[in-house]
């Protein structure tokens, strides 16, 4: 079936099998490999992207469901060489260790602040419950999100 999506502002159109998962479409068909696959069971959040401005786990959505929708992946977050404030906060707060969860963590965090621009530390921890960091580096991730919220206020 024909699927047309906008990813990071660019239109993409491909013929795919109906069972193609969105994350496989993004990585294998379009070639944007910044979105990672961790657990593949909608638990870990490594594959988090934005669909129409909201965080979604792209391993639990069909490419067919995304037809006609506006997607944002980690590659589309920065403005050229200028990092998005959340990426900059992750860098400054050293909010990553191995980095595998980072793209999904950043995309979830951006969506979190879109919905709640000044969260408490507890709200950040609960708001990121859909993202796992197997390095258990949560402390600095939470710091980075709070830092970003403060920088943007």
């Amino acid at each position, binding site marked *: 079936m024909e699927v047309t999506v906008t990813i990071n502002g660019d239109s993409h159109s491909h013929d795919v099998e*109906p*069972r193609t998962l969105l994350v496989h479409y993004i990585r294998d068909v379009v070639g944007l490999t910044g979105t990672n696959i961790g657990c593949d*069971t*909608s638990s870990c*959040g490594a594959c988090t992207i934005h669909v129409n401005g909201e*965080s979604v786990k792209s391993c639990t959505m069909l490419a067919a469901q995304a037809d006609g929708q506006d997607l944002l992946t980690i590659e589309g977050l920065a403005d050229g060489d200028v990092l998005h404030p959340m990426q900059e906060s992750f860098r400054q707060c050293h909010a990553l260790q191995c980095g595998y969860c980072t793209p999904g963590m950043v995309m979830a965090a951006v969506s979190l602040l879109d919905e709640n621009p000044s969260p408490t530390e507890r709200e950040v921890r*609960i*708001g990121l419950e859909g993202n796992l960091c197997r390095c258990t580096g949560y402390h600095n991730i939470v710091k980075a999100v709070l830092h970003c919220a403060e920088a943007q206020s």
Partner: protein
Amino acid sequence: MIPAAFDYVRAGSAEEALAALAEHGDEAKLLAGGHSLLPLMKLRLATPAVLVDIGRLSDLSYINDAGDHLAIGALTRHRDVETSELVRSQAGLLAEATSHVGDPQVRHRGTIGGSVAHGDPASDLPSVLLAMRATLVVQGPGGQREIAVDDFFTGFLETALGDDELLTEIRVPKMPDATWGFQKFNRRAQDWAIVGVSAVVGHASAGVGLVNMDSIPVRATGVEAALAGGASAADAAAAAAEGTNPPSDLNAGPEYREHLARVLTRRALEAAGR
């Protein structure tokens, strides 16, 4: 993990969805947000030959004040339920429990109707609908019918929905003055409840629904009867596991679940001010 191959049909209206169901019968499954069905399909525990995508039927996404109840469209996303002022003020238990479904990403896609129609005894929302005595509105080839939530769950992942029927609306009685408590016990963030309890206490009656205490979502009838007889929270909660048949899995055996049901019911009732 990749689902088995299927044909994909995108319904442009409820009528189109019903026509597709009529054509494909039990070969077809409805796809709403997909956050219950797609994980099962990826594990190949579900292998529908035809997937009828109803995710774009935006006219089934609404929360309306319908007099004595809230009318919630089956395709209303969890995110929209949990943030609705109307739900918060008229059915606080539903808003609170919905905020515990999955995680934010799941709630951006998952729908109340999809969750309920999935009929999973480990889901949070059926316990709320049982406690609040909701009614489910279903459309089929013969027209519309209403199903009381007590008659809706018929077996493990099975409901009273026919193969040719579509859940369209959930009617939740407005209970602005009721007090309530929601308890969900799990070991890790975002896990399914090992046991959960929804309790709502109105001036005339109380309702208590249980999560993961049987092969279907069940009501704690012993607790409700004790409360009607004037029992305290602690005394009523002692009956929480009566008549249930809790499952055994790697998280807990039946005895531990029965213990959790009693403790969580007491906490839920105390939160509701009993």
